């Protein structure tokens, strides 16, 4: 009896930090936000219960256009991160020797040691009109006038890919690492050429890692704020910027809360669609790596 109680107590104690974190920092604030998002401001300090905030979003094209734009650019970033990250992960997991593997992995991690903000300012130093790239080009005589590389979509996408690619590489390396080299050799031995082996053996095997990396990268990108704002400036029209505006600039918490939930619903929908398309489940991907 005593034994059983002690066991139960230790279980509760182990679970407590997680439960507190989830309940206090995730569930309660979200419930509060959801409650706020359902309030309609009819007059100063008078509220009514209703869906007005959500209806507003769909009534105003600029809002949902921004959301669609954020979603599609995030998808583009995810695809680019996958295309760039896969060869890197493959090199680390399969081609690099045992000794260099750790060093390469560490090199991928180094950018994380510097905060997002500092890294974004680093890009600004490089890319602004008076920045290093622009002045180098002028010095080399390739252009006559200073060039502004900041404040366009390409720069935003590049900056985002740079920020999130690590979260693509890590799950890919761990799945590819678990793949027996003889599986690839068997693919060749049975008559497959390079593209066939990649398409029929390596990619299907790495699918859980690919999907899990894509989910993480997509969520991080769609919810990112610093990089699109600093590199894209006022033109970036990132949806998180809309939410920020509602909360801080317009002091419209009701609308901001509604936008927040719409972003959550939208990204969840995209992830769900991606899982359905790739035939994977959350259990076989994110929970595994």
């Amino acid at each position: 009896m005593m034994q059983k109680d002690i066991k139960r107590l230790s279980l509760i104690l182990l679970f407590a930090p997680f439960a507190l974190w989830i309940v206090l920092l995730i569930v309660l604030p979200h419930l509060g936000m959801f409650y706020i998002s359902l309030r309609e401001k009819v007059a100063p300090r008078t509220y009514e219960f209703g869906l007005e905030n959500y209806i507003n979003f769909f009534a105003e094209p600029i809002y949902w256009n921004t959301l669609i734009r954020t979603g599609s650019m995030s998808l583009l970033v995810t695809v680019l991160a996958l295309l760039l990250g896969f060869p890197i992960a493959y090199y680390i997991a399969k081609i690099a020797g045992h000794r260099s593997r750790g060093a390469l992995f560490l090199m991928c991690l180094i950018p994380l040691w510097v905060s997002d903000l500092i890294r974004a300012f680093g890009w600004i130093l490089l890319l602004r009109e008076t920045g290093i790239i622009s002045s180098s080009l002028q010095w080399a005589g390739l252009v006559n006038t200073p060039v502004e590389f900041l404040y366009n979509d390409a720069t935003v996408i590049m900056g985002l890919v740079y920020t999130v690619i690590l979260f693509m590489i890590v799950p890919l390396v761990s799945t590819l690492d678990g793949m027996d080299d003889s599986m690839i050799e068997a693919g060749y031995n049975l008559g497959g050429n390079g593209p066939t082996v990649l398409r029929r053996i390596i990619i299907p095997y790495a699918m859980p890692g690919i999907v899990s990396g894509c989910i993480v990268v997509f969520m991080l990108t769609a919810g990112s704020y610093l990089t699109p704002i600093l590199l894209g400036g006022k033109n970036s029209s990132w949806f998180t910027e809309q939410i920020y505006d509602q909360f801080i600039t317009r002091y419209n918490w009701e609308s901001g809360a509604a936008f927040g939930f719409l972003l959550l619903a939208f990204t969840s929908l995209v992830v769900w669609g991606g899982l359905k398309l790739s035939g994977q489940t959350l259990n076989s991907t994110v929970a595994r790596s």
Partner: protein
Amino acid sequence: MQPNTENDLECIRIQKHFGSVRAVDDVSFEIPKGSFFSILGPSGCGKTTLMRMIAGFEQPSSGDIRIKGKSVIGTPPNRRNVKMVFQHLALFPMMNVYENIAYGLRCAGASKDVIRTKVHDVLERISLPDVANREISQLSGGQKQRIAIARCMVLDPDVLLLDEPLGALDLKLREAMKIELKLLQHQFDTTFVYITHDQSEALVMSDNVAIMNQGKFVQIGTPQELYHNPSAAFVAGFVGDTNRWAGRVTRVEGNTVEVETEAGLAMRGSIRGAGALGVGDKVSAFVRPEFITATKAGTSAGQTGTGQNVIDGRVDSILFNGANSRVLVRDRAGELIEADVVLTGGPQDLKPKDDVTLSWSPEQTMSFKA
């Protein structure tokens, strides 16, 4: 030189260096059509490297590999008609059995109907007609083994390479698979090249066995030849169980020698292997346990023929294993000698502490220059 099309596989003076290490050193052999050839050697002897060169995953530093008389040097692995069963089988876990077997046919561009008939044919031949839609994880160890072979055989290869595929199986299944592999080889009538460090696998299944050590082929021959007429001390010691003595030659008489072992035992043996023996030369003498007769001291001492080696000793322990039972006998010099005995369970059986006389013929005392 006229290429010999009777041989499925020929290797001519193959060498492979990794830096200063000679993994495979001047290996030549040929394997006639439809035979079961084993390469037997201790781990690290270069047998896996040799196999990877035949499959095309490594390039030899020098020498030539010919399949059906045609050199395949420079041919990438996917264009060689040599298929391989990997040590851990390397079945594709994301495909089911049907897809695993169909993979190679798809790569070869076969039509859907052809693929379906061929896959079902080959499953029929390995007597697993109903597993086509199973996942790999649902198969037993022996079934996986057969699927891995079927996946190769469906492509009708000139040579099938097997890289210790029985290593991961438990003992009972391994015994059963040995026989099954031999039967499958007969059935498909394809040349099998089997790599192993397990001598019983090699002896049971093969038509010919090559003994490999430190990158070189020491001897190629039928299992019987290797067992009864080893050409080198390494082969005598590696193939089969044996008693081994190191000693010096005290007298040479035609093809027989008198040897005094380091412990002071005197015995007569027959000269084997290359190199003439002279008085004072170091020798290694090998006697297989089944050629040593152990009798209780005093009972039948007179029955030993003249010229036999006779040693007295005392039974140290009995190693009972049914028909393969042995006794360990400690001789006067304190060394242990193994001898096969028949244990019937009756009162005549040898028991520990019995005094025994061991005898064996000089013919069976294989003496090699050390």
